[in-house]
């Protein structure tokens, strides 16, 4: 217990003492995972909408693949991405292994099925008659998607939070494809593993607390946006 207290004190020291290394590691975590989340949204939302609204051969299999993908083990993703990106691998010529770009790539593979799966679920939860009504009053296809998206936006925000939460807390893939290189690919989770291995438990706990604070702050922001919408509901008591 004393150890956790020491860690909390250390965290305060590192953060408010503006420790350059800790700040750069934190910022890199945010960048890599933020970038990965953004790309996952660009892929996952259209994919989820298509799976929810379209009927095509192989759709059942595609849905099963996405649902499986929502629980992809990060170390497995890390291993396969590494095999592709190593110099000896098929994409070795791109020299991406042990770069932040490689970490973004691995995290996108982890996060986009989560975003796609939750997007699909949120669109399928809408009343099917809504689409018919909107088309009936003369909405174009673009307008239809926009209006349905507005209806589904609360669960869509949950998809953003789940995707971001999944990748910022992930360690296996980041360790393997990033290599935990100081000043280049060291992020909060890999630094926590390293400091634990070194026996610097206070710093490890401090890094863990910073990670928790960061994800909490971001989720708080997203939740406030989400719940502000929700408050339009009448009081039910």
């Amino acid at each position, binding site marked *: 217990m004393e150890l956790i207290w020491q860690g909390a004190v250390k965290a305060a020291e590192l953060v408010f003492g503006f420790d350059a290394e800790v700040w750069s590691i934190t910022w890199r975590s945010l960048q890599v995972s933020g970038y990965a989340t953004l790309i996952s949204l660009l892929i996952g939302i259209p994919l989820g909408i298509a799976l929810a609204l379209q009927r095509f051969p192989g759709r059942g299999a595609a849905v099963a693949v996405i649902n499986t993908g929502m629980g992809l083990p990060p170390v497995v993703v890390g291993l396969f991405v590494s095999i592709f990106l190593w110099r*000896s691998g098929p994409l070795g010529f791109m020299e991406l292994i042990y770069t932040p770009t490689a970490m973004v790539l691995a995290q996108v593979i982890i996060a986009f099925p989560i975003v796609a799966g939750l997007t699909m679920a949120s669109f399928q939860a809408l009343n099917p008659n809504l689409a018919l009504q909107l088309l009936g009053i003369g909405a174009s296809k673009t307008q239809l998607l926009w209006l349905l998206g507005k209806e589904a936006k609360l669960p869509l*925000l949950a998809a953003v939070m789940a995707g971001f939460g999944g990748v910022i807390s992930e360690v296996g893939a980041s360790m393997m494809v990033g*290599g935990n290189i100081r000043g280049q690919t060291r992020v909060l989770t890999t630094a926590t593993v390293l400091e634990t291995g070194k026996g610097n438990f206070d710093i490890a706990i401090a890094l863990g607390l910073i990670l928790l604070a960061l994800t909490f702050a971001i989720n708080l922001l997203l939740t406030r946006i989400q719940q502000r919408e929700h408050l339009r509901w009448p009081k039910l008591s």
Partner: protein
Amino acid sequence: MKTRSMFLALFILTGGLLLGVPSRGAETQSRNVILSTTTSTQDSGLLDLLVPLFEKQSGYSVKTISVGTGQALALAAKGDADVALVHAPSLEKKYVAGGQLQNRRLVMYNDFVIIGPKDDPAKIRTVKSTLAALKAIEQARAAFVSRGDNSGTHTLEKSLWKEAGIQPNGAWYIESGQGMGATLNIANERNAYAITDRGTYLALGKRVTLPILVEGDRALLNIYSVMEVNPANGPRVNTAGGKAFADFMVSPQAQNLIKNFGVEKFGQPLFVPVAHKREEELGV
């Protein structure tokens, strides 16, 4: 209105991060040297001292990948690294004989020690030879924590068991599958015996309460060597960069830094520099 502000917030949150994700210019690629090395060199902090100095002097940018020695050598043999700094002489010699790695040069050594419970149930404190100590641990079925990860330390441990004529298995033989620091913590919690390099043991300090029971045996020498990767292993091996780093590690300047590393923090040096010597000349 609310939709717009929501999207604006999302845009700022994610879009703002686009700025400054480090991109790599094409011209910098050949300046990258990938060093595959072991957790002990990284965990001890030695590389944090040497690598920035090498980068400054040579203009190369070093990507240090610290994994177990088995993996470090395998990566180098596939041409996925340019230079290897590891500590498993028997494994290293296989790779050199096979031609995947070349120009093996000694850099430094430190030593392994056997630590264990204060009450020493296997009574190894009185035995001075490592092999006799291992036999006693096996006979007493006393808990022993092994790295179990094909690292340099694990390789040495396996060869010692083999020399002692023991095939360790059973509930007393615990394989952690983790790095040295984590393994020592397990040994500490389980009150078990373990073989560790002295550097990591010192670095963990008070956290590990198990005392050193066997030390100073020649069988416990921990020798680090640097090897260059044969360019034939892969299409993009940075031969010049790998050689430059290897040359740096055996240079008088690096050797001098190694000699004094750790004195300030632990009151004793963690490594003994031995560039340009032969293995037979080393002693504890």
